[in-house]
C-alpha cells in the first residue's frame, strides 16, 4: 500500500482508526521505517501528554452503576411501599428474581462488564503487572 496519511497515523496512535484500515496500516508501518518513526514520534508526544494531563476516562461505568443503583432504589421503593396482593400474601412473597436481576447490575455482572471496563478496573487496581 501507499504510505498512510499523517491523519491516519495520528488516528492510529490514538486508537481511533477505523478497523478495516488498522491491519493494513499496521502491516505497512511494520515494514516502513519512515512511517514507524513518524508513528513513534506521535506516540511519544501522546505519552508525554498523558503523563502531564492524564486523560479523564469517560465515566461510562460510573453512570451505568449510578443508573443501576437508582433503578435498584426505585425497585426497592416499589417493593417496600406496595402492599402485596392477597394472592401474593397467600403464597408468600418471594422477591428473589427481582433482587437477583438488580444485583447483577449493581455488582457489575457480566451484562455490563465489557473489555474496556475491565481494563480500566485492572489499571486502577494496578493488578496486572504494571512495571515500576
Amino acid at each position, binding site marked *: 500500500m501507499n504510505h498512510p496519511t499523517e*491523519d491516519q497515523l495520528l488516528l492510529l496512535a490514538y486508537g481511533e482508526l477505523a478497523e478495516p484500515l488498522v491491519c493494513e496500516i499496521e502491516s505497512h508501518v511494520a515494514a516502513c521505517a519512515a512511517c514507524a518513526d513518524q508513528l*513513534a514520534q506521535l*506516540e511519544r508526544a501522546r*505519552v508525554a501528554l*498523558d503523563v*502531564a494531563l492524564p*486523560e479523564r476516562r469517560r465515566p461510562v461505568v460510573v453512570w451505568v452503576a449510578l443508573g443501576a443503583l437508582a433503578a435498584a432504589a426505585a425497585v426497592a421503593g416499589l417493593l417496600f411501599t406496595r402492599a402485596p396482593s392477597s394472592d401474593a400474601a397467600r403464597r408468600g412473597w418471594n422477591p428473589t428474581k427481582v433482587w437477583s436481576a438488580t444485583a447483577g447490575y449493581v455488582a457489575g455482572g457480566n451484562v455490563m462488564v465489557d473489555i474496556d471496563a475491565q481494563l480500566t478496573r485492572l489499571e486502577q487496581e494496578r493488578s*496486572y503487572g504494571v512495571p515500576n
Partner: protein
Amino acid sequence: MSHIAAEQLLAEHAPALRNFLGARCRDADLTAEMLQEVAARLVTASPRLSLNGNARGYLFRIAANVWRDHLRRELVRRRAAVVLESAEPPLADPADARLLERELRAAVRNAVRALPPAQREVVELRQQRGLTFQEIADRLGRPLGTVLTQMRAALARIGAALENYR
C-alpha cells in the same frame, strides 16, 4: 478465562503482536521483552476476565499499554541521562524517577500553555474530556481534518519541547 485459554490466545496472536510491537520499537530484543510483558499481564488478569468475544482487541489494548509504559519510562530515563551529562545543577536527583517525571509534566504543561489557542482547545478536549477527534470536530464546529491537523501541530510542538528528554 483460564490460564490455558490465555496461553492459547497468546500463541494464536503472537505473530501479530510481535509485528505490532516490533513496528514501534524496531528492536528485536525489546520486542521480545514487551511480548513477555503482554503475556504476563494477560495471564495475571485472566482469572478475572470475561472477554465477550473480543480477545484480539483486548490483547492489542494490553500491547498498546505496554508500549506506552515503555515510552513513559524511556522519557524519564532520557531526562536522567541529560541531567547526568549536563554541567548544570539538576533540578532533581537523576535517580529519582518521580521527581524527573514531575519535571517532565511541568515541561509538557508549559508547552501546552504556549500552544496557539485553537490547538490548545483540541488538546484539552482530547486529554481532559476524553473526546474522540470526531466529537471534538463536532463540538468545535470544525472539519475533522482541521482538528487532526491542529492536534498534529500541537504534538509536534510538544515533541520539540521534549528535546531535552532525548
